[in-house]
């Protein structure tokens, strides 16, 4: 048994879930959990409770409400429905523009292929619910990216290495429709963010994400997807973080 007592260990379990422990504290906790069944069970209970909270219905404000909020701040009143949608999209664009990235958000007519969105969400869910979601745990992008050599038929280059707000957790080989994809997994607070990279030829790629640097932002079953392409490769980012946040995250990843 380690020097950590049960009461302190239980306090650290929750802080660990929130990513607030120093490496020393995390090490102490890990050692304690390895030798204490009671605290290990407590850790499982807390994780299961977080999983439940992550699955709660998320309520999003209507586009009309977003337009009203903008109007209150001095935008022209009585924005039409279409104008409201554009304003909403504009928020995402302005976030991306701040990062120096040119984005094209989907037009009202481009809803993308629903099978494509479904597949992206399914692959993300496989990562969320798999007992062993990662084939390689992250020691950083320089460890994860070479690991894919020989496992996929392309080289996933220039992959975002992660930062303090979005640390890379690791990678895995996924199957996206009819082909293998390299999955890079990141964590945003408590949310998992998956980036799937694959050859895009022959896939029903969204029209508005066909050109380099253009993106398609879609939603399916409570998840947001951001799709873009660079040369022969296609990229699909999936998470349950809100649409604007995921768009801002994608801006970090697009060259």
């Amino acid at each position, binding site marked *: 048994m380690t020097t950590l007592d049960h009461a302190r260990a239980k306090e650290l379990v929750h802080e660990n879930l*929130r990513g607030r422990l120093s490496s020393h504290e995390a090490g102490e906790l890990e050692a304690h959990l390895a030798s204490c069944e009671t605290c290990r069970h407590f850790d499982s209970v807390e994780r299961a409770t977080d999983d439940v*909270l992550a699955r709660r219905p998320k309520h999003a404000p209507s586009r009309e409400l977003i337009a009203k909020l*903008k109007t*209150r701040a001095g935008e022209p009143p009585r924005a039409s429905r279409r104008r409201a949608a554009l304003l909403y999209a504009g928020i995402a664009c302005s976030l991306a523009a701040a990062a120096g990235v040119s984005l094209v958000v989907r037009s009202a007519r481009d809803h993308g292929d629903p099978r494509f969105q479904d597949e992206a969400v399914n692959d993300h869910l496989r990562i969320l619910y798999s007992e062993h979601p990662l084939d390689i745990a992250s020691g950083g992008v320089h460890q994860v990216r070479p690991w894919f050599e020989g496992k996929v038929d392309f080289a996933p280059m220039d992959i975002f290495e992660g930062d303090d707000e979005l640390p890379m957790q690791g990678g895995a080989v996924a199957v996206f429709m009819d082909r293998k994809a390299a999955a890079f997994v990141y964590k945003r607070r408590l949310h998992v963010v998956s980036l799937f990279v694959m050859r895009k030829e022959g896939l029903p790629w969204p029209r508005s994400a066909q050109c380099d640097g253009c993106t398609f932002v879609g939603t399916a079953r409570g998840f947001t997807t951001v799709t873009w392409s660079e040369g022969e490769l296609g990229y699909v980012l999936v998470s349950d973080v*809100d649409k*604007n946040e995921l768009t801002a995250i994608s801006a970090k990843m697009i060259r």
Partner: protein
Amino acid sequence: MAAEEDKGLTEALALAEPLYDFARYLTKSSAEAEDLLQETFVRALGAYDRFEPGSNMKAWLFRILRNTFLDQRRRDKKRGGTSELAEDMANDDELLRDDVEIDFLKHVVAEDIERALMGLPEESRLVVLLDFEGFDEEEIADLAGCARGTVKSRLSRARARLRASLAEYVR
């Protein structure tokens, strides 16, 4: 609008989704949540000159939303409206046992999770949501207007009560 305010507005609008979700769970009503979010933005824009650039915009907006909600509650009370009963979790010790079962949690559906969350006393719902939103104990204490120690015990009891409610639903 000054460039700084413009930037602030963009940042604030990017937070509209988590703010609305929080408001929706606080008020239990989409109409009230819409009103609450609008009022929050009106107050935030009115007080923007008091916001310190570089400080935590998210915590600032959540605090304004929480205070706006409390003000509305007070007004409703004066008008004779109903409010939730004060929290009574004195008898929840049984829920904090170490041997609680968790397998059933894998099978609960979103609808039941929402029902269980909405069934928590208001202050408990508040700390569970703020904690899950990533606020730490000190920030939650500030937002909820209570001591840090209260946040800790309230949070563990609220999460335990949430599990207990869900257990009843799957029985």
